[in-house]
């Protein structure tokens, strides 16, 4: 595995799927605007033209269409890369409601394989079988990116934090090892609890992990405490991707990016925007304060 050099600025996907932490009305307006994949591609193309090559996205069903477009035009999108964030929990939630936990898992396993059989037996699963199921689920999420560049693969924050809270961090280790072994790329983790996660990952033997978390000047949604975040960043033990750098609009852009640029340990910023003006504005600020990757 080669250590991935992450770009300074990554493009996020919340705005495409009706996720807005400030207003349901805005969220709905965005859901309407991005109903068609063309509208998503238009925005991605603006970002790509600005030199923002990385799209950090949930493994939402609709990303399949984006992946198809990129795959269909390899010349144009030669430098385009995805950072998948998995799982997209909704599809599992629905399957669990429809089929129950075991039924849902069986539904996703290869029908003639040993795992499906193990789940049918109604007996306790061996550790190896649990690992096997996890790997099948990861592979399933990755299918839509077949043939595309995915140099970093993330676990979504609700899933990371659920496992972290329960103390089931071995599952994060399974993810880590599978991503390294099978895909030869960097495993990474999104969390709302960076200091706690970092400690837990280190206990699992994962050194200098890539962690994406809220990092902003006003400490918005930095659970575990602002100071603990800064300590972790300064310690050199984490490669951070900062999200919510504007704290949902509470911090003026220039001030927000300037502050981030002076933090050690922050390798990248992920942001979402729907207008060309906002995309160019953030790109210009990142170029001004952060320059090229170290």
């Amino acid at each position, binding site marked *: 595995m080669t250590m991935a050099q992450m770009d300074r600025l990554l493009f996020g996907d919340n705005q495409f*799927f*009706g*996720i*807005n*932490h*400030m*207003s*349901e009305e805005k*969220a709905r307006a965005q*859901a309407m605007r991005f109903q068609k994949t063309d509208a998503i591609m238009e925005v991605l193309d603006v970002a790509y033209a600005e030199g923002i090559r990385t799209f950090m996205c949930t493994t939402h069903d609709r990303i399949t269409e984006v992946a198809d477009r990129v795959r269909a035009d390899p010349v144009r999108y030669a430098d385009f890369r995805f950072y998948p964030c998995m799982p997209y929990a909704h599809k599992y939630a629905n399957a669990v*409601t*429809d*089929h*129950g*936990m*075991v039924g849902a*898992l069986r539904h996703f396993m290869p029908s003639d394989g040993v795992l499906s059989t193990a789940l049918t037996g109604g007996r*306790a*699963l061996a*550790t190896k079988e*649990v690992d096997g199921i996890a790997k099948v689920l990861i592979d399933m999420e990755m299918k839509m990116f077949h043939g595309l560049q995915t140099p970093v693969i993330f676990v979504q924050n*609700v899933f990371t*934090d*659920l496992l*972290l*809270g*329960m*103390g*089931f961090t*071995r*599952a994060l280790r399974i993810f880590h090892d599978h991503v390294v072994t099978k895909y030869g790329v960097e495993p990474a983790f999104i969390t*709302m*609890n960076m200091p*706690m996660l970092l400690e837990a990952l280190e206990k699992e033997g994962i050194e200098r992990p890539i962690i994406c978390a809220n990092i902003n000047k006003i*400490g*918005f*949604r*930095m*659970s*575990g*405490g602002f100071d603990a975040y800064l300590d972790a960043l300064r310690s050199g033990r984490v490669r951070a991707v900062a999200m919510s750098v504007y*704290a*949902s609009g*509470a911090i003026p852009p220039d001030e927000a990016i300037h502050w981030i640029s002076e933090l050690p340990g922050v390798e990248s910023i992920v942001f979402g925007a729907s207008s060309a003006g906002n995309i160019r504005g953030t790109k210009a600020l990142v170029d001004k304060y952060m320059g090229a990757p170290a």
Partner: protein
Amino acid sequence: MDHKVRIGVVGLGKMGLSHFAMVNAHPQVETIACDGAGFMVDVLGRNLENTIYRDYDTMLDAERLDAVVIATPSRLHAPMTTAALERGLHVFCEKPFCLDWADSERLATLAADKARVAQVGYHYRYVGAFREMKRILDTGALGRITHVLAEAYGPVVLRPKRSTWRSQKSEGGGCLYDYAAHPVNLLNWFFGTPAQASGSVLTPIFSDGIDDQVTATLGWDEGPTAQLSVNWSDESHRKMTTRITMIGTNGRIFADRQECQVYLRAPDPALPGFEAGWTVKYTTELTEDPWFYLRGEEYSAQLADFSGAVAEGQGKAVENDFASAAQTDRTMAMMIENAETGQPVGAPPVTARPTPARKRGWFAWKA
């Protein structure tokens, strides 16, 4: 309390797993888990350090617990809460509290007699925007509230589904208990138990025998009329959306999970910082970071209040005590009876006449 608070989380389903993760992440809490059986318990038993029991009574016998968090199917809430309180434990129970509101009131009395921290998981009371709504309402700055719209929508039942406890009315399934309970609980917080429920209609859409949509009219003595409009078969919402709108004699207020919008006709000294016209506050600015964030500050905050009250020996819940949840159970029972009989339940609300205008206004002669 000098030792860690020892909490047993019972039921590792949809809510239980998330409660377990949040409680377990709390530095001052030691967590034990309990779930009937099945696949999850097998997997977790092999991978977590926590002790996991398969039987509730065995756990209560074997462990020296301070408190339990109950997240089992609703039918089990009353017996499990009773057993815990009888052993002197503090209880956090998922909503809806009890399917029979007489049980809810009995347990509220029992918890009060024993000075236990007894709380129910109505997390919307911990959402910044709804707390702001409550604060503004209580200042009286909106004048007399006459008109309320309480709504909840979301994509839970979008096609006929296999049967689980959530699809059985007798087990506490259905849109009323699962979804409508939230806006009803907020109305109880704002105005208490209504005097009358009328026009209640509980309608199945895709489900067999349980309600997927709920509409009702609730009225309070000296208070507003509220229209309740709830539907969990609405795919246009990404997840559950709850919103409350109120119109008063001095303005209007709206809140959902994200924001609280206020319109004041005239500023009021009781509400400094709000001018005439619109003021908008966002949950993001109204919320403090919890010790551990999983899926929204409100879920962590309610458990923080619970474990904090237990640790400090406060002897009662900070918010959402059993008595307040009993109001919600009672209100839902009124709606069910109203829907079944077609007769309004409770007496028509007594409403004071509006203060006569000093001068003869245009509306007076128009009427």
